[in-house]
């Protein structure tokens, strides 16, 4: 109990000491909070997006077969589907028809897709929320597209994907196969790629190799590869996360380095007086440790709370700009709050403790010198 009481006196003294340099310490706390806010926002955002991507894309086709020509994705002849169907272990092969449509008026790219059976007519479309937001037609319920031959194609919007599906279908224009071929000029016996369903999912890799041997100009893409791509895209050590994190981490190091390299004359004099009054070096180190803890604990807690609110209550408006790039169309989505307590723990140990210890180093240097010399 005596030890606890002693520490409380240290905290009392530290708070009074910090209060004497209000402006400096308030700006220190602000910078600290901002850095923790940025780092934890990136961590929360990427971890939630990664989890969402992996959950959603677990439903993606187990194998896609593309054709490549001169290193580029090419249209695949439908006869390839027949040949792949002949491989033992393949349950079905289905053609996918999809492509892009650039709309000059909105300066946006849209994904156009055909799916059979399509419940609506050849002059109708089902569109994502982002299409409605950005297309900018005079008449709200129809889209006018320019076909490959220059002919105008008017599509009535029969239905829209719900706003909650924005993360996967914001830019999607779903039409019938006839309308798709009319719009893009895709020949009847060609498709964009093929979806292969395998009887035993464990054999996917073997079947992909067989397809590649039989049709050497094809490139099979397995679901595992899709998941791996997204896992690495939103991994905190790679992709955009590292771009955002590196700035914040660098700022933190500069900040900690500045703190570690020296004390102000006023702080040095304070330590000298305390030593002259009979404080031990260990007391001074204890006081400085609490000084670091006071700032870093409040900064950590405030930064983390603000980051959580930023990512899961306001859907990360600061990152929208980074993710948008040149794109006009950006989906609105609500992320499933999934926070890894292990990550919070790492953040805590990487921000609170180093800072608390770093503040002790210059104090220790001053505390071990003669008080008389320090105060001069």
């Amino acid at each position: 109990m005596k030890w606890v009481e002693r520490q409380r006196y240290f905290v009392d003294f530290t708070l009074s000491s910090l209060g004497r340099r209000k402006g400096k310490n308030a700006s220190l706390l602000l910078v600290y909070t901002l850095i923790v806010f940025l780092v934890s926002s990136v961590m929360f955002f990427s971890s939630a997006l990664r989890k969402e991507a992996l959950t959603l894309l677990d439903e993606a086709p187990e194998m896609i077969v593309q054709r490549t020509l001169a290193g580029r994705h090419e249209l695949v002849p439908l006869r390839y589907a027949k040949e792949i169907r002949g491989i033992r272990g393949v349950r079905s092969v289905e053609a996918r028809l999809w492509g892009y449509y650039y709309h000059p008026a909105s300066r946006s790219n849209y994904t156009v897709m055909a799916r059979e059976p399509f419940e609506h007519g050849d002059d109708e479309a089902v569109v994502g929320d982002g299409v409605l937001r950005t297309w900018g037609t005079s008449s709200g319920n129809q889209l006018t597209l320019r076909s490959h031959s220059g002919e105008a194609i008017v599509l009535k919007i029969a239905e829209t994907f719900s706003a909650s599906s924005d993360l996967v279908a914001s830019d999607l224009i779903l039409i019938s196969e006839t309308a798709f071929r009319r719009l893009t000029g895709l020949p009847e016996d060609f498709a964009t790629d093929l979806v292969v369903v395998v009887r035993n999912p464990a054999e996917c890799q073997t079947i992909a190799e067989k397809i590649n041997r039989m049709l050497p100009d094809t490139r099979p893409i397995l679901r595992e590869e899709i998941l791996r791509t997204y896992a690495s895209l939103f991994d905190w050590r790679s992709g955009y996360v590292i771009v955002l994190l590196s700035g914040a981490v660098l700022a933190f190091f500069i900040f900690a380095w500045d703190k570690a390299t020296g004390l102000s004359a006023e702080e040095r004099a304070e330590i000298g007086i305390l030593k002259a009054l009979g404080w031990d070096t260990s007391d001074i180190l204890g006081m400085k440790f609490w000084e670091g803890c006071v700032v870093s604990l409040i900064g950590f807690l405030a930064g983390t709370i603000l980051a959580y609110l930023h990512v899961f209550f306001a859907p990360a408006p600061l990152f929208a700009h980074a993710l948008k790039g040149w794109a006009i169309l950006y989906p609105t989505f609500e992320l499933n709050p999934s926070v890894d307590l292990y990550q919070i723990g790492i953040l805590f140990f990487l921000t609170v403790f180093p800072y608390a210890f770093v503040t002790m180093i210059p104090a220790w240097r001053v505390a071990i010198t003669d008080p008389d010399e320090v105060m001069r």
Partner: protein
Amino acid sequence: MPLVRKSDLWLALVGASAAVLLLLLLAHPAFVAKRLREKQQERKGLVRELQLTDLCLFTEASYTRHPTQADLHTPFQDHPMSLEHFPSGSVVMPPHFPGS
């Protein structure tokens, strides 16, 4: 000596902030789980039904809209000396191929 010590105020502030953080981390996800799970099921259904392969996050270029469907050359395919120039290109990782 004042009635309330500064250390007590600081401890109360830290305690209250820690409680708010814990509440957010543990209670909030449980509170919104049902509603968000329904929305997620809807998205999963759409991915299954339309055989989608990518999230609609970066719509500016084909290789950022469908990173899993693009090959490693796509960002540079406009002409032989073309450099990849879309901002999202710097934040989207190239697809993972076996052995790459």
